[in-house]
């Protein structure tokens, strides 16, 4: 192999950086920056490699698939790795500028980065479990860094439910391995036949992953975790870690689940996703704190993703993946903005937003731009995603999903405008407001622009996705 193995590189670089950051303790920040640059370069190289050569495989240790672990990077992997690089780097810049970021953030986040990269390029059911475990531990740690009683409780709930989800997934992996003596996803896909083993295994894996992706009605753990975590942690949790299990679910669904099982189970997942999309948006409307509002908005946006299961491959899958990307950038930007506002006002009560817009123009510009993706308005990335999903639902004659998408968009508009309206109202009193550091506002704005840019230049990412299996 003459070309550097970027499939392995995208995992190894954040892994090395994470370990050195742990070693560095309080002086982890410069290491995080260097690692972010290195990992971003690796991600770009992987994207280039896949755009040119298509799917890339790497047999770890030189052991071929049934015995060893296969890494496989397709268009989906490349896009996700790229999203991790963009959002992750912005989060590190934000953490540097945001006062009060816990010093353990960098190490915890780099561990999460490594887990996300490992998950994106894995083609092995058990290896995916290990990557999910790494994300569970890193995620709970990111929440617990806040070290307030409420955050610790949220972290505990996060880890217990995530472990329950992992365990369910593992049950399924064990059954599939017992039946087919392989863990490689495409080999499993070729081997499975409808029957009790497949049904129970798939049900356990899907249920576990649904719990981990906060599918309605299993979403209860998410809002306290996202709202209680430190600002920088919430950025990567809501932007990236929250989507990891969905990615595994997509792989499982389209590579392993036998087509005969897909319609009924897909319908169930779609109904739950639709319910979550609406329920999350309604609850977001009822929140009185900005970060809880954003967390419930995440429950809603994650719900849309599950519409891919009744709608199938093709444009629907492209739409869901695109929503993952656009939402990653937009929600990360919004949580950055919320962190800056919380820092400036001392609280993230919505009431404290009154009259804030003129004082923090960049932050509210960010909220407005990123809000476009939540609402699914053109020219945002969220619009492209929803357009693809809408098209798929009309094309397959399942028009009812289109209603969910449209109604959800209106609800999202309602809560986004609620925030913006408050901010542009005249200030109630002359509350003392600390200025948000520019370094914390700019990465947020950059990510909001990325979510917008995804809408303006949708062709290259969608073409890359076509380089999939």
């Amino acid at each position, binding site marked *: 192999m003459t070309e550097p193995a970027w499939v*392995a*590189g995208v995992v190894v670089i954040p892994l090395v950086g994470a370990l050195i950051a742990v070693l560095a303790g309080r002086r982890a920040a410069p290491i995080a920056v260097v690692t972010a640059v290195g990992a971003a370069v690796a991600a770009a190289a992987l994207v280039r490699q896949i755009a040119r050569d298509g799917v890339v495989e790497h047999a770890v240790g030189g052991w071929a698939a049934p015995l060893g672990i296969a890494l496989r990077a397709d268009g989906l992997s490349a896009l996700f790795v790229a999203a991790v690089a963009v959002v992750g780097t912005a989060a590190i810049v934000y953490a540097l500028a945001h006062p009060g970021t816990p010093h353990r953030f960098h190490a915890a986040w780099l561990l999460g980065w490594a887990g996300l990269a490992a998950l994106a390029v894995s083609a092995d059911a058990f290896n995916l479990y290990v990557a999910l475990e790494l994300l569970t*531990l890193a995620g709970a740690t990111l929440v617990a860094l806040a070290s307030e009683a409420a955050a610790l409780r949220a972290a505990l709930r996060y880890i217990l439910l995530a472990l329950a989800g992992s365990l369910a997934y593992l049950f399924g992996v064990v059954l599939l391995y017992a039946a087919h003596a392989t863990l490689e996803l495409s080999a499993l896909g070729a081997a499975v036949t409808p029957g009790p083993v497949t049904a*129970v295994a798939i049900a356990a894996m899907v249920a576990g992953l649904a719990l981990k992706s906060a599918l309605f009605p299993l979403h209860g753990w998410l809002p306290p975790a996202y709202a209680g975590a430190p600002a920088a942690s919430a950025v990567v949790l809501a932007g990236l870690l929250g989507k990891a299990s969905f990615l595994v679910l997509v792989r499982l669904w389209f590579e392993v689940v036998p087509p005969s099982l897909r319609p009924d189970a897909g319908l169930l997942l779609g109904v739950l996703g639709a319910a979550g999309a609406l329920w999350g948006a309604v609850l977001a409307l009822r929140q009185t704190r900005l970060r809880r509002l954003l967390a419930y908005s995440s429950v809603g946006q994650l719900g849309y993703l599950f519409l891919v299961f009744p709608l199938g491959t093709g444009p629907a899958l492209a739409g869901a993946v695109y929503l993952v990307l656009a939402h990653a950038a937009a929600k990360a930007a919004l949580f950055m903005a919320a962190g800056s506002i919380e820092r400036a006002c001392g609280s993230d009560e919505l009431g404290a937003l009154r009259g804030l817009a003129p004082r923090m123009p960049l932050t509210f510009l960010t909220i407005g731009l990123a809000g476009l993706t939540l609402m699914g308005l053109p020219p945002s990335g969220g619009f492209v995603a929803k357009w693809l999903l809408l098209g798929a639902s009309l094309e397959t004659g399942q028009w009812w999903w289109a209603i969910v998408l449209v109604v959800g968009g209106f609800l999202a508009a309602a809560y986004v405008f609620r925030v913006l309206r408050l901010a542009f109202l005249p200030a109630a009193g002359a509350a003392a407001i600390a200025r948000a550091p520019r370094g914390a506002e700019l990465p947020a704005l950059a990510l909001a622009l990325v979510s917008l840019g995804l809408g303006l230049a949708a062709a290259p990412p969608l073409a890359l996705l076509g380089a999939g299996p």
Partner: protein
Amino acid sequence: MSAGLAIDAALALVLPVLAWAVVATPDLRKAIVLFMALGLVAALAWARLAAPDIALVEAAIGTGVTGALLMSCVPWAESLTPASRRARADLALAGALAVVACLGWAIRALPEAGPGLTPAVLGALEVSGVEHPVTAVLLNYRSYDTLLEIVVLVAAAIGIDAVLPDDDARRRLAPPARSLVGVLSHLLVPGAVLVAGFLVWKGAHAPGGAFQAGAVLAAGGILLLFARRLRPVPFAARALRGALLAGPLLFLGVAVAPLVRGGRLLELPVAWAGVLILAIETVLVVTIAIVLLMFFPARVLASSRAPAATVEDPP
């Protein structure tokens, strides 16, 4: 019915009953004893299932570490209001029964135990550097999983440090006292170190390995901590982090080295595989032991100082 089958039946009957009792017992202290009993019965069950590797882990973690950890948490847990720690035993039971029913249905439909990957595992054993198939899987064929698992442990270490920061608690511990526990640690800790080394060495050709050895070493460390002969080292101490990360960093170095020469991640040269695996396992023992010991920071050790009156149950 042969005696072996009768043992299996007894274990199979007792395991779920004990597990249920652990969940359903409102008295925490009673539940801890039941939990330790559950661990022992589970170790025996793994032994009967011809899985000595797992029986070793269960014996080391279940009897050595978990029991001590739970005991250390009693003062804290008992301070919670009864309502907040009432277990929903009924829900747990219903969930467990449903899971058992589904798994039973699926397992009945599994094909007759075929050879699985065993021929492949044994076929490649010659070039794996070790003679024990479990070790070959963990540290050669699927060493990438093990590498990531070790990183999971590092993440756990950061998490523990975030939840139980140990920056200032050092001064609050009593100085070492001459005590029975001290005598016990004098007698047993050297044994624990020896057994840990023995298990690592043995892992190359028989059940054993870094995880089991790390757990044994950690149990020895717990004895020293309780005897106040070892001070909890705060995570902020660079020496601790260095010792913790030496293993993962070496492992990662071995993983990356082939990439530089255009090979595959974690490709072990056949001639060196045995030595490299032993080296990696040896340093990982320290990592695993340290992470387990991090569950006993000074704050937890200090809070286990509950007065004697609570030994007796309230009338």
